[in-house]
């Protein structure tokens, strides 16, 4: 069992989500930086899809009521175990009862903390992920919460150094235009303008601000299915890139779709970071 000492700004349980229920209005959810969660799981000897913690902006602390192995990946943050510095991106042994602390994120936004055996909260529609849009899955963590752990199934990895994957500087996202690029006077404006990540970005989507995109068709779009990475343009003309907790249908035109491989990078972009799009 783990006991949350300090939940931080937003910490949730995440695995690889609950795909396949979109026709019933169920968002896919799951870790926004899924490669980082997979890596953390491999480091502690878990199967890739084991539930871990997605720690937004760091400042998280917990105590672990058994000897365990943990690993921290994603956004680079200081890790301490029982007050002593421990390496980022490596398996770390935690003695029974010790406190594990994650400091403020230095680069990126979302850190992933895997614990050998995984967070063993009940699965909802096949996933333990917190869905911040629909409320499915466990609630976001609060100070004092107790979470059960599963039994470790594998051995921690022998890898002792993993380079950080969170990029720095301007982000370039590969995009495919459509399906509703013909609703805009010049959809290539998406490719020539620079955008800034807005502070209101969250697990539902990354809100970008820049020169508003102008609509050629001003009709209301009958609701249609939305994919992960869809760049939706609401009435204010500012693009919103949908992330894991995105709604399954929507009534604003989607000008393009960001390559899935680039979404983890966007999920690690901070408010104020610059984003550009280029054709995939």
């Amino acid at each position, binding site marked *: 069992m783990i006991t949350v000492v300090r939940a931080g700004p937003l910490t949730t349980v995440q695995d690889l989500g609950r*795909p*396949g*229920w*979109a*026709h*019933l*209005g*169920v*968002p896919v959810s799951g870790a926004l930086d899924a490669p980082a969660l997979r890596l953390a799981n491999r480091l502690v000897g878990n199967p890739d899809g084991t539930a871990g913690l997605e720690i937004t902006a760091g400042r998280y602390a917990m105590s672990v009521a058994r000897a365990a192995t943990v690993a921290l990946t994603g956004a680079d943050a200081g890790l301490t175990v029982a007050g002593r510095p421990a390496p980022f991106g490596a398996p770390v042994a935690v003695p029974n009862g010790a406190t594990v602390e994650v400091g403020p994120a230095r680069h990126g936004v979302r850190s992933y903390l895997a614990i050998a055996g995984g967070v063993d909260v009940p699965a*909802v*529609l096949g996933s333990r992920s917190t869905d911040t849009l*629909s*409320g*499915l899955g466990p609630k976001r963590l609060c100070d004092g919460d107790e979470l059960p752990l599963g039994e470790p199934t594998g051995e921690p990895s022998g890898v002792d150094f993993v380079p950080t994957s969170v990029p720095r500087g301007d982000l370039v996202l590969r995009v*495919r235009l*459509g*399906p509703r690029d013909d609703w805009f006077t010049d959809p290539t404006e998406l490719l020539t303008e620079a955008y800034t990540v807005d502070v209101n970005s969250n697990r539902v989507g990354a809100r970008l601000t820049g020169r508003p995109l102008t609509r050629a068709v001003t009709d209301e779009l*009958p*609701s*249609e*299915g*939305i*994919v992960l*990475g*869809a760049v939706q343009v609401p009435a204010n003309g500012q693009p919103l890139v949908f992330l894991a907790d995105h*709604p*399954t*249908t*929507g009534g604003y035109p*989607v000008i393009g*779709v*960001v*390559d*899935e491989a680039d979404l983890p990078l966007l999920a690690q972009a901070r408010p104020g970071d610059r984003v550009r799009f280029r054709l*995939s």
Partner: protein
Amino acid sequence: MANIRLVGARALLIEVDEPLAWHAELWRRRESGELTARDIVPGARTVLVDGVPDPGALMSRLRKWRPDTTAAPESGPLVEIPVTFDGPDLAMVADRWACDDRGVAERMCATEFRVAFSGFAPGFAYLAGLPPELAVPRLETPRTRVPAGSVGLAGNYAGIYPTASPGGWLLVGRTDVRLFDVTARPPALLTPGTRVKFTS
């Protein structure tokens, strides 16, 4: 023939007159192993096929497929939803429909609705069946909390809130029927194509 649009690297959007018939046809072909797709999501006038290994190849195959439009409307399960018609916006809807409160309930109960598509929340179904002249607007300022089970109207659609949430639909009644149960398969009571009758 349907207009088909590529959506990113792994999906297609099919624009069709009969999204439910297409949804049923694609679902059937996935069950039979002819189609590999993670999600088949109907919309108001579209079907999204997502999680497709090779959308380009599927696009050419899709052009040869035809849904069975003759069998679709009367088939599919029928769900009866008992409703108490005492919603806070009942008078507003009655005014729009040029009838009294009871007239709204009667019209709702006389209509056979069909789940056109889902969205907004898990288990929230957009119920089609009202004629265009009975379309109603949304509230200008959405309510911050609509109780679970509230039966509402927006545009030409009826809908039932599966859980308490903010919402802008005009509320005409409420039901105790459970619309979403994560332990049930499928978890939603109202799946695309399901026919719905309200009873008072």
